[in-house]
Structures are given as C-alpha cells and as structure tokens.
C-alpha cells in the first residue's frame, strides 16, 4: 500500500497519537515525517527516560513505537514493560537490530527487525491504531 493512501478517513484524528522513541535523530525524523504525512500525531522521544516522562504525564498516547537498544538507563525493553504496566491498552511496536526473543514477542503487538521497511512500519501503526479505536487489544 502506498503512503499516498491517506489514513485520515480511516482514523479519528483525536485518537491517533504515536510516541516514537529513537535515539538517532535522523531516523526519528524520517519515521515521524512518514507518520505525520498520514495524519497521525507524533510525539518524539530520544530515549527511554523521555518516553517515561511522556507516559507518566496526562498526554494521550495510543501507540508506542520504540527501539530496544538506547543509550539511557531505561532501554526499550524496560520502557515496554513500564508502558504495559502504566497503560495496559497502549499498542506497542518494538524495533531492534537483533532477533526478537520470547520476552519481546510476548510483550509487543508487533516486532520489526532493523533495517526495516518504512512503509511496513507505517501500515502496521495504522492497523494497530484502528484496532485501538475499536477497542481491540
């Protein structure tokens, strides 16, 4: 599916916020731009600690997209566990340059190994947001 296929008619705008956690700024920018081009609101965090600040605030987030390896005290796995505990309905996509282990696959709604296809991430985000809007877990 092309990125030109807009998700705006498919997704309610006030329920489409994705928290993107990625420590490499240019990769983060590329992912955020691709999601914003689909009408999705994106909050950017550069590490797990920043993401925790967002998740501990009142800011609504429907989906967390996080890298596993990050140079901070809270890596992606710890963040995923904390996010699941704090916001059980949150959709979760994990990306890593390593193979997913059982812990990751059991925790996440989707897993992508790096390098990943940007279109694939965007499409998975859109399908999970649709699930979230319809109350799917």
């Amino acid at each position, binding site marked *: 599916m092309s990125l030109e296929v807009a998700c705006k008619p498919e997704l309610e705008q006030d329920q489409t916020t994705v928290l993107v956690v990625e420590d490499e*700024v*240019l990769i*983060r*920018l590329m992912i*955020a731009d691709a999601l914003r081009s689909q009408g999705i*609101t994106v*909050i*950017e*965090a*550069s590490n797990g600690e*920043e993401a925790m*600040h*967002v998740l501990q*605030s009142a*800011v609504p987030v429907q989906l967390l997209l996080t890298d596993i390896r990050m140079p901070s005290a809270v890596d992606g796995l710890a963040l995923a566990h904390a996010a699941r505990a704090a916001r059980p309905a949150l959709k979760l996509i994990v990306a890593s340059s390593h193979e997913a282990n059982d812990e990751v696959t059991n925790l996440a709604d989707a897993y992508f190994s790096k390098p990943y296809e940007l279109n694939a991430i965007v499409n998975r985000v859109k399908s999970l947001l649709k699930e979230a809007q319809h109350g799917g877990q």
Partner: protein
Amino acid sequence: MADSDAELAELAGTILVVEDEVLIRLVIAQYLRECGYRVIEAVHADEALLVLRKSELEIDVVFTDVEMPGSMDGFALSQWVRSNRPGVDVILAGSVGRAVQAASELCDEGNHVPKPYDAKGVHDRIRRLLASRRPGKRDLQSTLESASLGGPVQ
C-alpha cells in the same frame, strides 16, 4: 485543502526546535505545527548539528534553549549556525537574563525570548522574523486567516 496545506507549510517555513525537556519540546513543537510550520525536533545541540549538516534539510529558523546537556550549549550552537548556515536565523530561549542578553549579541536584534515562554509569543517572534526576511511573501497571519485555520491555540 492539500494544496493550501502545502502552500501554508512553504510560506511558514521550517523550524528546528532544540530543547532537552521533552514535555516543553512537545508543546512548542505541536503548537508551531498547528500554526503551519514544519518542525524538526532535536534534544540537544549535538542532534541539532546532525540535522543542520544535512544541507538537503532546509531550515529557516533554529529555536534553541540556552542551557542544554551535550558538547555545546545554545550560545555555541548559535555561533556554529552563524558560521556554517548563514541563511538560518536563530532564536534563543533562556531563563537567565544576563546570559540571554549576551546571547542576543550573537543574534539579530531581539532574537531571544525569556523562559518560561508562552507558545504564542514564540510564534509571534518567528512570524515577525520570517516576515522581515521574506518581504515578497504574504504575511503568515493573513494566510492562516484566509485558510480558515482559526486563531492561535491557547
């Protein structure tokens, strides 16, 4: 609508927001996006430099905090921009009056805002700055109004 969105983004320009506090950064970045700007976010000067060194990424204004972790603060980032991206304007935000005053000497007259700042004030500063650079282009506010995007987000 897509055409007017694209026109607005082109008229409004691209702002690189450099702020290490995520909840402050997301508020000002989101506000500026709703005003029609393309916003690129950087957590500190080191990230900002990675963006600024990409010449294909067109940046109009760097809006940066003064005090940040990393290899350089907002002053040093301003100096780097002046030397390496001379077409890019810099607005500094800082809570220390004397430091901000000193920083203003690095920038155009008045290109600093005291912290805490309100998002509308930042938008006004950016809009005036870009309007002064682009006399041939329509005033952003009139563009926003003609596009029926409404007033500033409070």
